[in-house]
């Protein structure tokens, strides 16, 4: 029986930057390839928002005798359904990885385990951005009017991005806690759809009973939708319904801070829960 000398590992040791960036790129490429192999995961979350934008919103407008601005209002509101739904469905990939994929191989790799969460997040963001783009394209084809400015686009992108990050935090956390895909899917409507009805997607939150209005004000989705409408429609009424202030920019900044805080908190929690569930 012999013993080994304390020599350097045989494999190449990357620089500190590459130590995280290179494996992150590898994980992103892997997740993207897995996602691209199941295109229905890209298409299915689009169906409901597109249905709302193309069919339900025009029908509501006609039935309720509202103006063209209602179609614009709902078009942005549908993004509040698309983003949470798509990010929640992205969490299914985590369960598939754990149950029948290569998650344990990834956990045995010499990389920071938080990269596994971040790699999935980046791909989920990319697919959601694609879907939001498709939804906007459908809306434009439907002759829905947007009031687009450079600053407005930044508010919109910031709100959509942070909302997506926050929702992926919820998805990853739930996927780490729930043992089976069936249970996970059963919980998606409660998290991905119910808040949408409360967050001012189809009507202003001021139209709801007082208690529901207060609940709406603490939902990150309410803040994100108000910001997205401010960004794409130059409509600050949603922000005003939350903050009751005079400066739209100040209200937008406050709402962005709320969504950012949710995103940071939920991402931190998701990494912690994933790492803990992977390591017993």
């Amino acid at each position: 029986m012999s013993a080994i000398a304390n020599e350097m590992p045989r494999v190449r040791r990357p620089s500190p930057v590459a130590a995280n960036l290179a494996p992150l790129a590898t994980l992103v490429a892997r997740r993207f390839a897995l996602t691209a192999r199941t295109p229905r995961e890209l298409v299915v979350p689009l169906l409901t928002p597109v249905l709302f934008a193309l069919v339900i919103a025009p029908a509501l407008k006609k039935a309720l005798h509202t103006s063209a601005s209602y179609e614009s209002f709902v078009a942005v509101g549908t993004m509040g359904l698309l983003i949470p739904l798509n990010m929640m469905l992205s969490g299914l990939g985590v369960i598939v990885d754990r149950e029948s994929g290569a998650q344990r191989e990834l956990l045995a790799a010499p990389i920071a385990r938080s990269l596994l969460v971040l790699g999935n997040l980046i791909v989920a963001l990319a697919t959601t951005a694609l879907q939001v783009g498709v939804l906007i394209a459908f809306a434009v084809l439907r002759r829905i009017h947007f009031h687009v400015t450079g600053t407005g686009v930044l508010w919109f992108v910031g709100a959509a991005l942070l909302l997506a990050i926050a929702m992926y935090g919820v998805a990853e956390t739930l996927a780490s806690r729930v043992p089976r895909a069936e249970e996970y899917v059963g919980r998606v409507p409660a998290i991905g759809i119910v808040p949408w009805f409360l967050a001012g997607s189809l009507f202003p939150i001021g139209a709801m009973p007082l208690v529901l209005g207060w609940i709406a004000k603490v939902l990150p989705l309410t803040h994100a939708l108000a910001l997205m409408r401010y960004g794409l429609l130059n409509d600050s009424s949603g922000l005003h319904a939350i903050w009751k202030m005079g400066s739209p920019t100040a209200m937008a900044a406050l709402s962005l801070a709320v969504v950012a805080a949710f995103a940071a908190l939920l991402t931190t929690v998701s990494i912690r829960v994933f790492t803990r569930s992977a390591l017993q």
Partner: protein
Amino acid sequence: MVSTEERPAIDVRRLTKTYDGGVEAVKGIDFEVASGEVFGLLGPNGAGKSTTIGMLTTTLVPTSGTALLGGFDVAVDPREARRISSVVFQDAVVDRSFTGLRNLDLHAKLWGVDPAKAKTRVAEVTEALGIADLVSRTVGTYSGGQRRRLEIARALISDPRVLFLDEPTVGLDPRIRHELLDVIAALRAENEITILLTTHYLDEAERLCDRVAIIHAGQIVALGTPEELKAKLGRELLELRIDGDAPSALDILHAHGIAGGDAFTVGSTVTVPLHDRSSADAIAAVHALGLATAAIAARRPTLDDVYLRLTGASLGAD
């Protein structure tokens, strides 16, 4: 840091794992595995083998004790410990919708293998494991044996110092199992690699391992080479299938000095290590007692006998 100090490839000291709820899966085990050694952890399901592998591969956090891989403490330097090791899991852990090649490439990139070296290494290991013609196919089309070969090939891409094989042949049909044992035997012959193998197939351990540790209820109850462990039962043993109560028959054998303290019963079978006594003499003595036996035979001890004597339970049982 380069040092001329020599150390074991795996060094485990008083390693303990207690799960939430108080289940003590591993209870303060100690063992060392030298570089180039094939070390077997034997025991039934639930004995603590996979928990030990989990702690060594840093997917489980030890409750107490230390485990060093190539000098890296798995609790203090888990990434360094993972960098010098690879693991083949008991269940299939692959991306089935990817080709074999893509799975190999993924491992190479995550372990930081130089791309040029990775290409050469992929060619080498797929050839050595007989899957070079398969790797362009998606893994979902592989048979169980092919997939297991792919997983072993993947583990070797990063040229690990330490390779963990967790029940590598479980669930495979006998022909594929023997083919895979040939592959593992060739690995140790052709590579300077330390292998820690868990199994509850004793023929695998006898064939592949330099030393084995028998783990039972979270504790190592025997450790040594297969020959050393078997030698503790003598050159031969007597196996009696009793018509009636086996423990009572063992008491009679004890009382007449035919069985020593290391004789044991499993079901209706009494096993008596003979040590210095001849089998002919022992059989004659048993016949003289008039015990009701359905069968009586003398044979050489196996690792199974060692395990049964130490634990009173059959390998493979839960």
